[in-house]
């Protein structure tokens, strides 16, 4: 149990909890001292109560300092805390005496004995808290030898408190981690935006100029570099921390943009479940590959992404020579529409449709349509 305590997880947010435990310990010590003073005369060995109280006071001071430093919050300290507190509790048997205890007089460590349970709950979560609460609760019951309703209530309350504290600590830890991630992401985004501005102010302008002034290979290379950079600048890490389930289709398709591929679509993100979007992007990639394979070089391709109330429509059009309608049928009959089949297959799997239209002189158009309520791939 002790081994599972994660000392490493401590970050700033735990410090107030440890301070709260220290305050509790001091308040409980004061309460226990008052009770000892009031019940002093009923004790079997009254003089021995003072050394025990002194040890408790010393331990209170020690733990206040020890727990304050994350480096010292290690298993030996937690075990020692639990054992020493249980010992102080057990010392009640010889000092207060069986008779007085059975008479309902409080133990020497009353309320003070809850402190290590809280410490375990903070360090070890719910499970740590429960383990410590069971140990301390059993000790308390045995010491008091009061096996009735009132006797159990104290231990049960302690157990519930341990569970609640353990749970709260876990929640606070999650919230803290999430905040941490958000802060990191924001910093990364800001850095990216700065980079984007720099790229825009210098590199893109020069690349565009090269394209205008030069011709041939250099212009083509400049164009491709420019398209790649433009995509990098325009669509930065728009995906947020807690939005792993949906992605922007435009972001996924962005990398396809080049000197020969133009992408058009709405300004707002087109959100789709991540697996669906990836599959759709792969189908678009297959369609573009097809253009590259079957059309003469220099053919331009155009991607149009449209979001309609009923679904998403992606059109891949090329301005190549197109296919005569009879040739399309012929090719299909001979099973030579391999790529077209694979595109259709992907869309059918997604619950969508793919249609291919071609006209001589007007290029080929592949329409990929996906219903909004399409089944999600999981």
């Amino acid at each position, binding site marked *: 149990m002790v081994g599972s305590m994660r000392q490493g997880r401590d970050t700033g947010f735990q410090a107030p909890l440890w301070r709260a435990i220290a305050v509790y310990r001091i308040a409980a010590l004061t309460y226990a001292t008052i009770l000892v003073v009031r019940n002093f005369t009923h004790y079997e060995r009254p003089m021995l109560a003072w050394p025990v109280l002194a040890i408790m006071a010393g331990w209170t001071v020690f733990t206040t300092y020890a727990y304050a430093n994350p480096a010292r919050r290690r298993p030996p300290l937690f075990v020692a805390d639990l054992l020493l507190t249980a010992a102080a509790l057990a010392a009640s048997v010889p000092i207060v005496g069986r008779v007085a205890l059975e008479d309902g007089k409080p133990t020497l460590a009353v309320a003070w004995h809850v402190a290590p349970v809280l410490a375990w709950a903070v360090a070890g979560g719910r499970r740590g808290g429960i383990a410590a609460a069971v140990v301390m609760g059993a000790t308390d019951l045995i010491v008091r030898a009061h096996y009735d309703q009132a006797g159990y209530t104290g231990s049960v309350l302690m157990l519930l408190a341990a569970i609640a504290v353990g749970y709260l600590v876990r929640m606070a830890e999650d919230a803290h981690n999430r905040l941490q991630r958000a802060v990191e992401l924001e910093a990364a985004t800001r850095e990216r935006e700065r980079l984007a501005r720099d790229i825009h102010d210098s590199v893109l302008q020069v690349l565009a100029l090269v394209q205008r002034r030069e011709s041939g290979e250099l212009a083509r290379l400049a164009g491709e570099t420019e*398209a790649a950079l433009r995509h990098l600048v325009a669509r930065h890490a728009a995906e947020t921390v807690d939005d792993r389930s949906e992605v922007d289709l435009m972001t996924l398709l962005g990398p396809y943009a080049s000197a020969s591929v133009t992408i058009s679509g709405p300004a707002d993100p087109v959100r789709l479940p991540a697996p669906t979007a990836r599959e759709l992007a792969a189908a678009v990639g297959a369609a573009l590959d097809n253009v590259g394979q079957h059309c003469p070089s220099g053919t331009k391709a155009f991607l149009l992404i449209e979001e309609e109330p009923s679904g998403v429509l992606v059109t891949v059009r090329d301005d190549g020579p197109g296919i005569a309608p009879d040739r399309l049928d012929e090719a299909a009959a001979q099973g030579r529409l391999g790529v077209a089949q694979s595109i259709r297959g992907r869309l059918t799997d997604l619950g969508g449709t793919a249609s291919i239209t071609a006209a001589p002189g007007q290029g080929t158009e592949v329409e990929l349509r996906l219903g909004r309520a399409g089944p999600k791939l999981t």
Partner: protein
Amino acid sequence: MVRVMVVDDHPMWREGVCRDLAAAGYEVVAATGEGRQAVRIAAAARPDVVILDLQLPDVSGVEVINGLRAEAPGVRILMLSASGEQQDVLDAVKAGAAGYLLKSAGLAEFLEAVSRTAAGDTVFTPGLAGLVLGEFRRLAVEPFDKTAPKLTERETEVLRLVAKGLSYRQIAERLVLSHRTVQNHVQNTLGKLQLHNRVELTRYAIEQGLD
């Protein structure tokens, strides 16, 4: 002679554009790298066409467009941008820019765009057509906006073909329309968006008590 003003903060690019325009027979009346300055000198320079880089260091593209239209009524603005930030392009078009071109466009394409802008036509890239289509679709599903403009079926059809990279000639051929009609349809879509934008701004002003 058509009077042209060039607004671009990149000196090398600005000079290149000015040279190209002069060589093509345009009168370059002003060239500046700052949006505020462009607005200040617009009234005196009286340009017919402004070639405007969308990303200027001092003010946003929309602010420059508003300023230019106030100082030089009737001025036609052709936007250029290197990075194609989608929302910026859309906002600029709604504010009244007459057309949009990526800086990577070839010289011939650029000069044709300038001459079309000067002639009062709109200059659409496939990318801009996609943005305008998306904007109309967004407005269509906007709940409380009863004044939202709508595209006719024909206009939608034409815009989609522009977005798919067809030339006006190819579109005219496919839809059996005249070149001029295709041009008008495209221009209308932009006109509706700009009108809606002005209505929205006016309504906002009245709501805020700025009338």
